[in-house]
């Protein structure tokens, strides 16, 4: 029964809403329990890929068929969703007091989970659309409920973009429905394959639009930064970790299950890649570069990580677009890994925000001595994000590089290299300014977060290392997905992956690392013991430092680098869109000025004029 994955969270949502009114912790607890239940029951149905369900409904004269089925792809995404929501829910049990609308948060959160499940199991467009819309709306309320004023605007932008894309989806889908009489994927794919290629491509592009928006690919990434930056701190991990990924789920469905790649197979190609795919990959490359450059400039920790999410999405789309076995596996790996390490980062930052109440990096500092576990979580996650071995993040990037070099896509590789090297810069900024450096006097008394917040972070640290050593666990399900989608699979074992030009073997890496560290530790340990001094006792050209606040280098950390891109950053795409729409909408105002100026004699005149015009038109015809 697949419907239970939708209805259990939905039913629990209302229960959580009601119970949360009585006890502030009830909602999050219920969310955690429901997610745990989903996770368990998903684990139980692993492998039964023939599971499906369908309803027939005659609605207003339309014969509709609602189809749901379990595929390896949807299973993976469902597991990721429930796992991450479990961690977030556990994390948020103690921070419910921070919420303005605690009950509504839990209500919406559970509804988002349920609707994502609906999206994932849907095998027809209508089901997909219904749950997609539901997901958009509920997440809209979640983003809006962020504490800051910008949250509203961000959510607003998010919803408008999503809605526009959703309408394009709806139009294309209903068009296909008119032709085939069914909303299901298979007939649609068949129809699109046999249809004229340009029309099919257009339809599929329209269908894929909501997924592009959700995945935050340039130039539709404008909602991501503000939405992530201003959403409630507990929701940001989910937003970045999971909601963006659902977009990729949709893209994979469009590309493979709706045979987009088959349709464009024989069009003009560049280095064996159809031009359209290459264009997608280039969009990914641009996404990486813009996301990275803008991330480096941010002073707000959540916005910084949001831009980093944008840039990491670029890697995933590149891999999916080039569609080689390595590219696809790399993308899927990166997708999972990004979910893991980005949630860790956001949770760690949420812990910081929970304790300090600010998201501005220059307002905090030196928290490592007060919140060591949070620091450890953040550190592990950024090592993974920057793609440093031996963590999971390196493996996925390595596979993507292999895929790019294999085919010789120079410019894509250049962007990938750029994003990866520059990611050191932006991940180091919060590390340096939030956790290291000088501890502010007002934060002297800060304590580590409560146990329930520590547990998710600890688990995530473990998962990062686990997948860093045993990527085979991930490759197992990925190879099933590739098999299901008809992509060749990559050779792998529990701890190694075969690339195009050499293999990755995490066991060796791990051994060597251990050896290196042991030697270094020996050197360190054998030397004289050192004396511990305070953070203010530093070389300051002889001047005695009393003021920790002004002795913390945090504001405009990479100013020299930023200077290089000042001109570029001043041209905001968001601003461009906003002026465009504002001008379009202003035309309404001029309409009103012309027609509805409040002169009743004019109104009377219009009726006569209309009569004359229509009569004239009738006459001419």
């Amino acid at each position, binding site marked *: 029964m697949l419907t239970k994955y939708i209805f259990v969270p939905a039913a629990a949502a209302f229960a959580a809403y009601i119970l949360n009114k009585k006890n502030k912790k009830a909602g999050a607890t219920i969310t955690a329990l429901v997610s745990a239940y989903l996770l368990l029951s998903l684990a139980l149905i692993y492998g039964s890929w023939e599971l499906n369900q369908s309803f027939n409904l*005659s*609605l*207003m*004269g*339309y014969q509709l068929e609602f189809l749901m089925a379990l595929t390896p792809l949807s299973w993976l995404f469902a597991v990721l969703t429930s796992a991450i929501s479990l961690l977030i829910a556990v994390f948020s049990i103690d921070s419910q007091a921070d919420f303005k*609308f605690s009950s509504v948060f839990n209500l919406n959160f559970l509804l988002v989970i349920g609707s994502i499940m609906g999206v994932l199991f849907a095998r027809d467009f209508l089901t997909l*659309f*219904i*749950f997609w*819309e*539901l997901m958009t*709306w509920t997440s*809209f309320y979640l983003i*809006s*409920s962020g504490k800051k*004023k910008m*949250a*509203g605007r961000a*959510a*607003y932008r998010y*919803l*408008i973009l999503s*809605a*526009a894309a959703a*309408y*394009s989806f*709806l*139009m294309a889908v*209903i*068009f296909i*429905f*008119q032709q085939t009489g069914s909303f299901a994927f298979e007939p649609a794919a068949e129809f699109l394959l046999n249809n004229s290629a340009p029309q099919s491509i257009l339809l599929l592009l329209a269908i894929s639009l909501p997924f592009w928006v959700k995945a935050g690919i340039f130039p539709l990434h404008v909602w991501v930064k503000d939405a992530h930056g201003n959403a409630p701190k507990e929701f940001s991990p989910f937003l970045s970790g999971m909601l963006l990924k659902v977009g990729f789920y949709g893209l994979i469905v469009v590309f493979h299950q709706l045979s987009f790649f088959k349709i464009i197979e024989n069009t003009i190609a560049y280095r064996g890649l159809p031009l359209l795919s290459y264009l997608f990959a280039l969009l990914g490359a641009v996404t990486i570069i813009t996301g990275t450059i803008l991330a480096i400039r941010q002073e707000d920790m959540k916005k910084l990580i949001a831009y980093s999410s944008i840039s990491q999405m670029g890697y995933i789309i590149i891999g999916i677009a080039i569609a080689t076995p390595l590219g696809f596996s790399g993308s899927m790996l990166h997708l999972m890994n990004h979910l893991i390490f980005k949630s860790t980062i956001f949770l760690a930052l949420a812990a910081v925000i929970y304790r300090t109440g600010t998201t501005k990096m220059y307002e905090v500092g030196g928290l490592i001595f007060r919140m060591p576990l949070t620091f450890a979580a953040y550190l592990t996650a950024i090592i993974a994000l920057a793609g440093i071995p031996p963590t999971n993040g390196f493996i996925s990037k390595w596979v993507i590089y292999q895929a790019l070099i294999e085919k010789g896509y120079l410019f894509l590789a250049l962007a990938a290299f750029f994003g990866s090297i520059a990611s050191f810069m932006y991940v180091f900024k919060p590390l340096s300014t939030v956790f290291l450096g000088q501890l502010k006097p007002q934060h002297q008394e800060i304590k580590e977060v409560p146990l329930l917040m520590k547990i998710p972070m600890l688990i995530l640290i473990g998962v990062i290392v686990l997948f860093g050593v045993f990527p085979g666990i991930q490759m197992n399900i990925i190879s099933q997905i590739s098999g299901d989608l008809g992509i060749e699979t990559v050779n792998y074992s529990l701890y190694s992956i075969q690339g195009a030009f050499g293999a990755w073997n995490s066991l060796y890496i791990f051994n060597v690392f251990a050896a290196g560290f042991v030697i270094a530790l020996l050197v360190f340990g054998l030397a004289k013991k050192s004396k511990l001094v305070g953070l203010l006792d530093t070389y300051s050209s002889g001047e005695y430092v009393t003021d920790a606040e002004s002795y913390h280098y945090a504001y405009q950390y990479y100013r020299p680098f930023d200077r290089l891109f000042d001109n570029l950053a001043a041209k905001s795409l968001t601003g461009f869109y906003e002026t465009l729409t504002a001008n379009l*909408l*202003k*035309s*309404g*105002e001029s*309409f*009103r000025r012309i*027609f*509805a100026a*409040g002169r*009743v004699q004019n*109104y*009377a005149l*219009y*009726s*006569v*004029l*209309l*009569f004359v015009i*229509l*009569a004239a*038109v*009738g006459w001419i*015809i």
Partner: protein
Amino acid sequence: MVNLTLIIALPLLMAFTMPIFKMLNSKLPKFIALLTTAFNLIVLSSNFTEIMAAPLILELGGWQAPFAINLYVGPLALVAAFLINGSAFILSIYNLSQDYQFDDKFYLLFLMITAGASGMVMTGDLFNLFVFIEITSIAAYSLTTFAGGSSYEASFKYLIIGGVGSVFLLLGIGFTYSAVGSLNLAEIAASAGLINPLLLQITALLFLIGIGIEAELFPLNFWVPDIYTEAPTAVSGIMSGAVSAAGIYALARIFFTLFPAQQFFNYLLVIGVITLIMGELIAYQQENIKRMLAYSSLAQMGLIVTVISLGTEAAVKAGLFQLINHSILKVLLFISAGVLISAAGSKKIKDLAGLGTKKPTAAFGFTIAAMGILGVPFLNGFISKFMIISSSLNADQFLITFLILAAALIEIAYYLKVVQKLYFEDLEIEVKNTAVITVPVILLTLLIIGLGVYPQLIAEPLEKAAAEILNNSRYIMTVLGGI
């Protein structure tokens, strides 16, 4: 089964005896209005199955059609009458708890407008249609002024435009009568083919303009924003929920039954789309919430006209569904907006910030209605949006579909602004005591969700209504019988 004539007669009777009730007890008039509308709903329900089986024709005065004045209640009229009386009923509940005390005259006129609008949809006679339109408009002119202040100006504007509309309508009726020699709709429809094409065209255009004013079509609709903004909430609600529905009915009846020529449908299509786009664009700019809702109403009317004038069965069904949704949602929007306005003491959207927690019921009502309009799944607007797009694509109208969706996008933009203001911004304002609207909000929310989850509920009436409106020979046959 109760005689349907009562639907018109009872409110009129009650309306004119209202001063007597007032003498008995000053609180009685509101209850009388409530009871009357409730009774009307019961009457309609009791006739439901029968009308679904076959249209009901009531001949007044014992004469037979085409000579008698007849009432024709088919499925379409039934749907429209349900909407009108339903809106009136909900608004009467709303009136019960109003803190402002209107006297008997308000309820008198309120019942009159209900009777007038019901009459418009039930009549089978062109002149009676005119009469009912006049009753409705005159009641509306006066009702508007109950808010005082600048509502007089609004009312005056409406009066003038309404006067112009009456002239056109009367002229059209005159031409028709001179050409056909009858005012019975069926009779006219039967002999419309005999009319001189030029005369027919002129006549049709006169009707288009005369009724277009009631149906709020561009560019005849600029009285609407003023009326909706300035009138008391209940009046805005009934204008938007009931009178405009009656206008659409009249428009559909005249153009589908009397002059079913593609040319007029094309006119209506163009006018409808322009109304839609303009309404949405202007609504987006508004800072006054009631004015925003007014322009949104215009746009919705445009949408409905557009879709209906596509002329396919699916399209008509979609349009009618949208009409139903529009009535439900707009009534809810107006009453919750009314509560929010009186709580904040201002009609400006920006002054409503933060009322979500202070006036939870009204804010919830507004939100759910807005989401309904925007087509969130499992709410009624989703179904009608689906049907609209499906039917317009089916009619190969890509441009129209695109414009409809673009307009829907603008609609999202401005409704969301309000919703966000309500919940996610804080403004320290003193909240005034306002009416309690729990009952109407619950009733309408149930309807919204009910229709969204199980639209099959009204599938039969819609199906029958669409079939009826598209087949004018059946109408003629039914009314005229063997003749």
